[in-house]
């Protein structure tokens, strides 16, 4: 077989390597299937708030499933925490657990399970899964109080602890989990599912080495990383050297409604790209901060989008990427800063990088989206169901920005969240004391107009059916609108209306708030930015969208210069012509 001449000294032929690589991807996918199917919490089996991957003995990620990109981006960092901390104490049959945001993690809810894999008595690889536990204790059900001021209010920390030592269950840790979380059954159920996923990876790895020899598998790891690195370096080298900057605002932190500045300078020098977040605000009092590991993971998402969006990801791709930021910023928070809503920080960091690079890689980019996870947490005691404690955590989907050849996507998961799903209404009503009154496109507040318009966000309204339901919610991008591209207009913002008894409040962040039976929350996510001059959008298309109820006739006129006759159907050609060619907007 022909060898790739640019890569040195491989003994294994390229076909065998490709087969092994395919098997590694299948192992990562199988880990995900096992975790999802054996899990006990809707946020895992329905929303898919988890990810699984497979790393080599150095901790470098070689295969991942489709999942949360902030998790997959943190895999190598997490595995390296375990490698560093336990070094020569790692043994076959060991399994570790960690969730410390200040050392490799994201927030306490995201619990990593790491299994070192030994082949012929030698450390050979690591399997890792990270999943979002519904509750890890702390101040509020769901462990995400929007008004947290210290990490201690956000639950329990596992700073890299051993769960199984040479196959022996460490009961003390399980007891600690049970004693510290609100729904132990669910937490232990999900822990079991995570354990299953790393065990299946070990089993498959043994089969793989048995069939092809461990040298061939190890070579495949190395080849995968090296060839990805090479493509990645070439892609960066093809971009013009220079410094590209972007600025943005964080709209409130849950404690204050102030706006906080963030910025990035992306330096491209030859084959390397450095993302420098110096100049972003200091860590905030509220929980929208993220830590360095989450920052690096969030930058990886955009870096991969630039260099090669579709080839399977691994650590090799990221070798030409550097992230710089001083300690103690909103992106590099230090203990005891709260980080519960860290994904607001990572969404912001990803989008800064995206915005900075949009001008030099427009063919890989879109206009801005209503980029926030818009997470709502509801919980309490369900008296109708044997007084079961319940917690529902739900990210909302948002409108995405338009691109140069088509409209933006409607209601799609925000950048840090990758391949996650919304809750099925039928499933949600069956599991939680909540009734969904509406789930529709947000045509009320619209999208950024453009030759190609932004995608619509959604309106989702819940009525709570249980007294003393505890709400906490925190939506970003509630003031600063999603940016337009190439003369496209800005999109719209995220917020929610809270109807408590007779009172209605519009908010974007709610600290722990009590709701009673019949109270409602109407969650509104924004539309994406437009691309291109709205006056260039075909008038017939605008008229169709008026008929279909995406736009009002007034919006068609004001935003697109298209005049619809009183019958609501026909275009007034003369008047449209006059508006579109006449006065500047």
């Amino acid at each position: 077989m022909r060898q790739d001449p640019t890569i040195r000294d491989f003994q294994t032929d390229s076909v065998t390597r490709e087969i092994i690589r395919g098997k590694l991807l299948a192992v990562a996918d199988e880990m995900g299937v096992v975790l999802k199917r054996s899990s006990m919490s809707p946020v895992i089996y329905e929303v898919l708030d988890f990810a699984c991957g497979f790393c080599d003995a150095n901790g470098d990620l070689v295969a991942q499933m489709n999942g949360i990109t902030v998790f997959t981006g943190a895999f190598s960092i997490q595995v390296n925490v375990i490698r560093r901390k336990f070094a020569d104490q790692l043994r076959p049959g060991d399994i570790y657990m960690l969730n410390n945001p200040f050392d490799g993690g994201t927030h306490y809810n995201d619990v990593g399970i790491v299994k070192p894999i030994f082949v012929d008595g030698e450390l050979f690889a690591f399997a890792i899964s990270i999943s979002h536990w519904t509750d890890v204790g702390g101040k509020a059900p769901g462990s995400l109080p929007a008004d947290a001021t210290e990490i201690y209010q956000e639950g329990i920390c596992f700073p890299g602890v051993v769960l199984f030592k040479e196959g022996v269950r460490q009961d003390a840790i399980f007891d600690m989990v049970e004693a510290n979380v609100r729904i132990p059954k669910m937490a232990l159920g999900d822990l079991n599912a995570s354990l299953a996923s790393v065990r299946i990876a070990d089993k498959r790895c043994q089969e793989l080495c048995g069939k092809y020899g461990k040298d061939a598998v190890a070579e495949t790891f190395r080849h995968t990383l090296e060839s990805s690195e090479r493509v990645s370096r070439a892609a960066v080298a093809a971009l013009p050297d220079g410094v590209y900057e972007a600025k943005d605002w964080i709209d409130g932190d849950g404690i204050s409604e102030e706006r906080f500045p963030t910025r990035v300078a992306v330096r491209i020098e030859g084959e390397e790209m450095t993302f420098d977040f110096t100049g972003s605000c200091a860590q905030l009092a509220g929980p929208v901060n993220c830590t360095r590991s989450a920052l690096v993971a969030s930058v990886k998402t955009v870096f991969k989008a630039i260099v090669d969006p579709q080839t399977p990801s691994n650590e090799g791709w990221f070798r030409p990427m550097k992230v710089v930021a001083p300690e103690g910023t909103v992106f590099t928070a230090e203990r005891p800063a709260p980080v519960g809503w860290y994904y607001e920080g990572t969404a912001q960091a990803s989008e800064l990088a995206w915005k900075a690079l949009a001008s030099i890689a427009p063919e890989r980019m879109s206009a801005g989206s209503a980029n926030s996870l818009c997470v709502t947490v509801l919980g309490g005691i369900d008296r109708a169901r044997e007084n079961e404690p319940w917690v529902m955590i739900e990210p909302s989907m948002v409108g995405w920005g338009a691109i140069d050849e088509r409209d933006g996507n409607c209601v799609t998961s925000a950048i840090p969240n990758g391949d996650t799903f919304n809750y099925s209404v039928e499933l949600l009503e069956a599991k939680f004391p909540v009734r969904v009154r509406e789930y529709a496109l947000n045509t009320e507040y619209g999208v950024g107009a453009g030759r190609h318009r932004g995608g619509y966000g959604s309106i989702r309204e819940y009525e709570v059916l249980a007294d003393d339901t505890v709400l906490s919610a925190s939506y970003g991008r509630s003031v600063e609108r999603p940016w337009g591209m190439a003369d496209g207009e800005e999109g719209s913002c995220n917020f929610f209306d809270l109807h408590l008894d007779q009172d209605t409040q519009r908010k974007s962040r709610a600290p722990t708030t009590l709701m009673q039976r019949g109270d409602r929350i109407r969650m509104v996510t924004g539309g994406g930015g437009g691309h291109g001059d709205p006056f260039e959008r075909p008038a017939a298309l605008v008229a169709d969208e008026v008929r279909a109820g995406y736009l009002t006739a007034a919006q068609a006129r004001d935003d697109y210069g298209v005049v619809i006759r009183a019958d609501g159907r026909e275009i007034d050609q003369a008047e449209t012509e006059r508006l579109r060619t006449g006065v500047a907007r």
Partner: protein
Amino acid sequence: MGRLATDIGGTFTDLVYFEEASGELKTAKSLTTPGDLTEGVFDTIASAGLAPEAIAFFVHGGTTVINAITERKGARTALLTTAGFRDVLEIARGNRPDLYNLRFEKERPFVPRLLRFEVGERLDALGNVLLPLEMRDLDAAVARCEEEQVEALAVLFLHSYVNPVHEAQAAAYLREKLPRVAVTASHEITREWREYERASTTVLNAYVQPIVERYFERLEGALAGRGIDCPLFAMQSNGGTTSFGWAKAHPVTLIESGPAAGCNGAAIAGEVCGEPSVIYLDIGGTTAKCSTIEDARPRVTTEYRLEYSRTQFGYPLRIPVVDIVEIGAGGGSIAWFDQAGLLKVGPASAGADPGPACYGRGGTEPTVTDAKLVAGVLNPENFAGGRVKLDAGRARAAMQKIADGLGTSIEAAAVAIMRTVNANMINALKLVSIQRGHDPRDFALVVGGGGGAMHGAALGRELGVKEIIVPLYPGLFSAWGMLATEPRCDLMQTALVRADEVSAREVRDRFDELTAEAERYFEDFQSNDGIALRFETSVDLRYLGQEHSVTVPVAPEAAEMDQILADFHAAHQRQYTFRLDDTPVEFVTYRLTAVANVARPRLRALNGQGRSLERAEKPPRDIDFVDDGRHTARVFDRNRLPAEAVIDGPLVIEEPTATTVVHPDQRLRVDAQGFLRITEGAERGGAPE
């Protein structure tokens, strides 16, 4: 008396007839007639010379449904939902499988917002009525449907999977008020929860229903008009058949009928050859489809998603479908240059009409078939049994455009097209094998369709399979598979109850109900008296708190609670590495598959009469083997090859509906049944003939 199978493909209509008494097979193939598909069916019946009274059983499959959907040529379809939820299709699940692509494109809904209507009504998750059905809203929807000239209407109300009362009421009313509109209510097509998935399934059913209904009615009428009055069966995507009546109301279940039949055929072919692990590749005129079969059973799943890929979620269809991957690459695929000047082949296809340039029916675009003719692979006199004469001059003329673009000869252009289409097919094959963690070296490649035998040897070599199997009548393989297909129905009933509240008695009662339902289903068949039904029964169980369940086979008459639970714990441990003995277990769904026993056509050993290598050999010809160079190849007539003949490549085997290519350094063996078995390494394989 015998059994007849007909299969309409994008390009050809195929027929296989099995004479029950003699075990003789008859075949025919003709061009598909897109104007009126039934014409092609009768063309094949006529050319096989079958008398109407000889046909005791008629099974039919085709691409009507999938073509209407992939070409977006279905009916003008509206969707009626519970008030507040009309955007369910456009919102979908909001997921983004193309993780790092900021320009990812979400699937477009099959119903535009203009045609999405709402009606006041509401149930809760237990099926209790919260708000009555608002008849005024229904009337408004009727008016809108008339105004917009809607042809099909899907109805999706929340929680109808638990209690279909409002959906059924609305559907009845709408059918009365809109007699010309095809109405599908979601509970009629799937009883699974999750409103988006059910909506997607229902809408696709409505989208194709007017087309399928018209087509089956025409076919029934035409069959009756010609004196064919035997039971009529439609091939379904689940690998079984059903009555025409049922198919007309549930047309989306026909979506993968051809591939499902092919998978059945491939499983049987693998079994006959002692190869339980099979990669099946079917290459037709428009598409190539592939599937992996383990333990001689095609995988059937309800997780089918139309137009799914690793980076695209696709459209969910919650109906049982064989697990296949399909790409737009076939004999009719057109070669073209993209904006960057790169050579591409497909997905656009010349189809049957006008067809490839060499058919001489007005096609001028260069296709894969034209390239094969130029390269010498196809014999212009032997195509479709010699009934379609291929015109090499027209093929070369069409190929000129590609030669000019590449700055090469016409011959080199043909090779470039073959190389490009092979690469596309290899990618699809890798998707079902390597990327799912299978090692192709453990599998045999079974090829079918008009083009499978022509591409099989090259693809099998590149994939590294154990051997390549060209079954009998590869060009009619789906029809052949249909003959061996049995009427089947998959029934299930969801009943969430904790295991400690379930008795063995109850389990038996549930299965008795399902059995009765299956028997009612088969009563509707205008069928042979007293079909013997075979049942497969299982229960889905899970640990309390889980969403997903594990399926455990249960024999109802011998059901013991302890045994069911023990089987569940063990199955859970096998699949997920752990068991939770202290966690309560929940019964979720009772499943019953009922299959009507139909004897499989028994393959006979090749008749030795008139067969020998000498008699089979035809004049050699020069053929371009792409990566393996240009060679003078021996040519044989398959119908004269004797059993156990062994010949080394390069060579070509011709039969009326297919051309098998064997590359240099490959060895061909004809087995006892007449299957062609191709393996690598002619030089190592003992003494040459």
